[in-house]
């Protein structure tokens, strides 16, 4: 009959133990922390404006400079600083990833909750809507959307969330279907709780962990999609992203000139962030469903 002294400490300790056991998850967290700090303090870290055309002391454009000296990672063919672009790229990547994930979690969870709890025509309409969204080809849709709307970063976010919410919605719905039959939900109904109260205070907290799991998968997807769209030339023209850097390098034939310092870092960053997201999702899944381990 001893009271748990501090449940918060227990959670931290558990998280710590888990990351100790799962080095991949730990690596994922470290990578994310590094990129998050880079994104937050981008203004302090960069040495130059990422889109400014730089000049050498002798007045010539500082194009195709090799790494080293003032230009840590060299410059592009138009004389822009690669390192500064990389740093700002982290900011747009994380912004796209996190806001798309947030939207998917919010929309998917709400749809799943209402669909599963009310059933009937509400369920039918929402789930068929989800089927439609899932049947639309992913990348072409984003490209068309970018063509019709202004190609900016938020339209990519909207496109990604518009197509990815049904996955979360379905999973949440199936959870709600079992949760709404639990005794405590029945007890809440007998105690006079309204439907919305039951839905949001009694059922929703039970499905949040799984919505977050699906949200964490979306982070990687959104970053990857934004990079693909930018690389294909349909990306945001008003901000620097890793996909934009790759496209820039591709069009300037950086590869044939052997300017690896230009495109390898951004490609590596995309890979690292997406892989880190995957590692974290996996570790988180293991935390949620410990039985999966064996």
């Amino acid at each position, binding site marked *: 009959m001893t009271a748990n002294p501090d449940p918060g400490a227990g959670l931290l300790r558990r998280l710590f133990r888990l990351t100790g056991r799962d080095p991949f998850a730990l690596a994922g967290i470290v990578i994310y922390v590094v990129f998050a700090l880079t994104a937050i303090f981008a203004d302090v870290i960069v040495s130059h404006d990422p889109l400014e055309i730089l000049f050498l002391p002798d007045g010539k454009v500082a194009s195709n400079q090799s790494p080293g000296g003032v230009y840590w990672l060299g410059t592009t063919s138009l004389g822009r600083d690669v390192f500064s672009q990389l740093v700002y790229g982290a900011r747009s990547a994380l912004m796209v990833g996190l806001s798309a994930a947030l939207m998917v979690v919010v929309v998917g969870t709400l749809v799943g909750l209402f669909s599963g709890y009310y059933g009937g025509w509400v369920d039918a309409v929402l789930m068929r809507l989800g089927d439609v969204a899932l049947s639309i080809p992913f990348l072409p849709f984003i490209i068309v959307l970018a063509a019709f709307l202004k190609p900016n970063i938020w339209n990519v976010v909207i496109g990604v969330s518009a197509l990815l919410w049904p996955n979360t919605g379905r999973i949440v719905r199936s959870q709600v279907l079992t949760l709404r039959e*639990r005794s*405590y939900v029945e*007890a809440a109904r*007998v*105690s006079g709780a309204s439907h919305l109260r039951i839905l949001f205070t009694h059922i929703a907290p*039970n499905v949040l962990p799984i919505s977050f799991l699906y949200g964490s998968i979306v982070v990687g997807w959104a970053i990857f999609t934004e990079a693909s769209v930018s690389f294909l030339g349909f990306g945001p023209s008003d901000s620097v992203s890793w996909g934009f850097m790759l496209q820039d390098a591709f069009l300037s034939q950086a590869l044939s000139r052997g300017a690896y310092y230009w495109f390898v870092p951004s490609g590596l960053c995309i890979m690292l962030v997406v892989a880190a997201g995957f590692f974290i999702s996996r570790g988180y899944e293991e935390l949620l469903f410990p039985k999966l381990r064996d």
Partner: protein
Amino acid sequence: MNLLEVQDLDLAYQTHRGTVQALQGVQLCVRPGEVIGLVGESGCGKTSLARAITGVMPRNARITRGELRWQGVDLLKLTEARHRERRWREFAFVPQSAMNALNPVHRVGQQIAEVLTQRGGLGASAARARVEALFDQVGIDPQRARDYPHQFSGGMRQRISIAMALALQPKLVIADEPVTALDVIVQRQILDLILGLQKSLQLSMIMVTHDVSVVAYVCDSVVVMYAGQVVETGSAAEVLDAPLHPYTMGLTRAFPDLQQGIEQLRPIEGSPPDLLTPPTGCRFAERCPFAQDACRAASPPLRSVAGGARSVACWRSDEAAVLRAQWLAEPA
């Protein structure tokens, strides 16, 4: 005045295969301070009746006939909002199986406090004090109100659901199989707790159970249900001692007794009838060793016997003493 009177209640479930007549012509009367045991095997309508009283039923359930009078007011004629006002304040509910009765993501104290603040109009600090008092009442250290349900054993969770039911000081507590999922020692503790609280708070209770020994231990009177109908009522001692309905005879014999040998144990053969197509005559006739042609022809009404103290729905209840002897004598 009676606290609750159920009269001629019919309840049906609409299913894909047709209409299931889950309750038919059910009569029930709860006096203040009385503990009623509602017994019968699975699927005979005990839980349906308990739910009909609380007014929280599955979507496909319809009450097609009858009255549910709470202190003279027919609950079925009230609007949903007026019915809701009475829920938990006047009659509360202890759900089936302690394991699922509490929400795993909220601290237990918070779950009780929610009822107190949302329905009882208490402020946060008053609610906290009341939660502590309630925990004390059901024998749990009030310190543990900050714990989550998984940190408690089954018996303790059942105590907490009882505390939650008592939160708004209801007059009637409906307990759906309150001890079924527990081992016998904990069962005894919970039953003693329920009895103690019932006496000190002057509660009325409806105890839904399939365990005749629970009825014998706790209940003042008993209502035996079979296939959606009430087949026998009366004081617990009399009904269990000298059952009038063959089904009750079967129930009292279907549980082992420590003092008697197992040769005294006799299960009731078969299973309850399909309520999609209920038999025309007595619903127990199919399984009843004493059934006659008259039993299959027409359904026996619930008649008062023993000067109104008991009632039974059996054509042969006058011969009950002889039938009891035969039930015991007949080899299994």
